[in-house]
């Protein structure tokens, strides 16, 4: 019975996080062994959940079934979208944890790092599988507070300032989300997402809903680093340790930001045209703004951080278009295509952005600097990093054999079919600028004559850093197989169905 395994996704990382500080005092390498092991087990479990028997698995915590048809306790709800997110979170988590085994030799306080890492993954897993609004807020706070401390892990001047700004903006965003949840409880009297969904469909209270939806877009938009709220991302991602930037950029802004918007705006709120158009416009503005900001950057990690904003713009654009078409009851096939493109690009972005940040970490680990002007001619000294970085750069700028090309192509096709011609045009232009920006990275960092000051020859990144990079590079190629229908129906189509027919999330919970 798969259902009994669902709590493992939260129990295991929490137990690991609590054990590591205790046992690390006697056996100092305990953290670097336990954390990757836990993530590996969860990745295996996540992939196993793709082959579950019924589409929506429900686990009633504490055994509290329905009381007069009203869900009382908290439920774990795992559907197509949840399984997809679980697999991505735990896979990238495992690779980042494995990568940081040797990366942390430059830092002190290793036990705190792995404990906070496990807590962040536990928080994200908790957000993805819970079916209760307030519980989503609590586990969102766990993931975000752990990431505040991890951003300030090196305790340098700019890391502390970046973490403080991230924390202030994150705190305000969490309070906006809490305000939204309080008003939803005020109106419907219940916290269960499925229950609220059914109540909102009966009573037409659009006046309250618009205010609540804007609050939640503001709150979750800041967590997803959309343009009007992106101020914290470049500092936080460039000053954090590289495996943490890979986790933040690759997974945290998705699991906490975009997933929450998808779950609430598809499966809970009634669709309306203005809000979905607002989300699409925010996605487009982020897509264009992110890349324009990224072109002028010389610090490698800041450049990657700005590209994260623009790639997340693609994801939100794809999902926003699907929402707009659904809200005007347009052609459901085009809506399914747009959402499929958005989700597919989200998975791809987690893979190649994680790889790019791990490459930047390897370069910084070996040469000690991140500035493109001081780097040069790395391809002789670090052939493996150069090749994985090349594959990731081609993936992000959408060059055919790699996965980025297919997901961007699907989004642009969906935009054309859905008559969003301006969005399609902007998507193509942004893809070209991304290609230019990454060619600049390669020209300065890898090819050309070595320009950096210390001429000593340094070798390739150590094994524990090289293996995750190779695995991610292979995934950049492997994920392009998802376009084939037979493979897609196992992994991505259940997630798209979970969003398209909005009420089949709520029906099994309320046993309608």
């Amino acid at each position: 019975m798969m259902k009994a395994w669902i709590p493992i996704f939260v129990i295991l990382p929490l137990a690991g996080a609590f054990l590591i500080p205790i046992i690390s005092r006697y056996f100092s390498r305990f953290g670097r062994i336990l954390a990757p092991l836990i993530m590996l087990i969860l990745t295996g479990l996540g992939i196993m959940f793709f082959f579950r028997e019924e589409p929506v698995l429900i686990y009633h915590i504490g055994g509290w079934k329905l009381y007069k048809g009203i869900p009382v306790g908290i439920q774990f709800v795992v559907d197509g979208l949840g399984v997809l997110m679980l697999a991505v979170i735990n896979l990238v988590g495992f690779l980042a944890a494995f990568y940081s085994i040797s990366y942390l030799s430059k830092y002190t306080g290793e036990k705190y790092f792995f404990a906070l890492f496990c807590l962040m993954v536990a928080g994200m897993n908790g957000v993805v599988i819970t079916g209760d609004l307030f519980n989503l807020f609590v586990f969102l706070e766990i993931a975000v507070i752990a990431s505040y401390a991890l951003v300030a892990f090196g305790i340098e001047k700019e890391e502390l300032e970046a973490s403080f700004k991230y924390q202030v903006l994150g705190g305000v965003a969490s309070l906006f989300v809490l305000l939204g949840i309080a008003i939803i409880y005020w109106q419907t009297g219940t916290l269960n997402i499925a229950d609220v969904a059914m109540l909102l469909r009966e009573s037409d209270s659009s006046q309250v809903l618009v205010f609540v939806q804007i609050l939640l877009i503001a709150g979750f938009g800041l967590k997803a680093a959309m343009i009007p709220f992106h101020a914290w991302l470049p500092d936080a991602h460039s000053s954090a340790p590289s495996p943490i930037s890979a986790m933040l950029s690759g997974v945290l802004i998705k699991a906490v930001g975009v997933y929450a918007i998808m779950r609430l705006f598809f499966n809970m709120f009634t669709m309306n045209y203005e809000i979905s158009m607002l989300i699409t416009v925010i996605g487009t503005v982020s897509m264009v703004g992110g890349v324009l900001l990224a072109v002028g950057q010389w610090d490698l990690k800041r450049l990657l951080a700005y590209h994260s904003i623009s790639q997340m713009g693609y994801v939100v654009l794809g999902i926003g278009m699907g929402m707009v078409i659904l809200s005007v009851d347009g052609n459901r096939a085009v809506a399914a295509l747009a959402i499929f493109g958005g989700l597919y690009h989200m998975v791809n972005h987690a893979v190649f952005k994680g790889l790019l940040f791990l490459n930047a970490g390897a370069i910084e680990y070996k040469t000690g600097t991140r500035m493109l002007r001081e780097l040069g001619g790395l391809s002789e000294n670090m052939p493996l990093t150069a090749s994985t970085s090349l594959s990731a750069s081609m993936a992000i700028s959408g060059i055919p054999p790699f996965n980025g090309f297919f997901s961007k192509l699907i989004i642009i096709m969906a935009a054309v079919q859905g008559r969003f011609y301006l969005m399609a045009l902007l998507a193509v232009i942004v893809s070209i600028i991304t290609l230019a920006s990454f060619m600049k990275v390669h020209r300065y960092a890898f090819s050309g004559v070595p320009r950096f000051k210390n001429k000593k020859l340094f070798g390739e990144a150590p094994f524990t850093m090289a293996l995750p990079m190779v695995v991610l590079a292979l995934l950049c190629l492997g994920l392009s197989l998802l376009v084939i229908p037979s493979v897609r129906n196992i992994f991505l189509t259940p997630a798209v169905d979970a969003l398209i027919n909005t009420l089949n999330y709520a029906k099994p919970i309320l046993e309608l």
Partner: protein
Amino acid sequence: MILYILCFILFLVGLYGVITRRNVIKIVLGICIMEYSMNLLLVLIGYVEGGIAPIVVKGVEDTNFVDPLPQAMVLTVIVIGLATTAMLLAIAIRVYKKHGTFDIREIKNLKG
């Protein structure tokens, strides 16, 4: 209705403090004030006219209780507020020791 408006004004005062103040400690105080107003709003929502505290006392048979769910939520939000405040203060004191000032604008240009 007036109580909800006053509570939201308290929220706005906190938000105003976070946006306009330049002293790091005052920004932290602004966030805490916003958390106070959120706690107050949640308990105001749960209040029932003439209700008694949600404690079942043996003798009293009155079952017109105040709603216990927002109170459970507020207890959680209070401890979340304590956790975020302690984290903000730890980082604020570390920023002060590194930059020598609490003024957010000077901290920004010292970043170089």
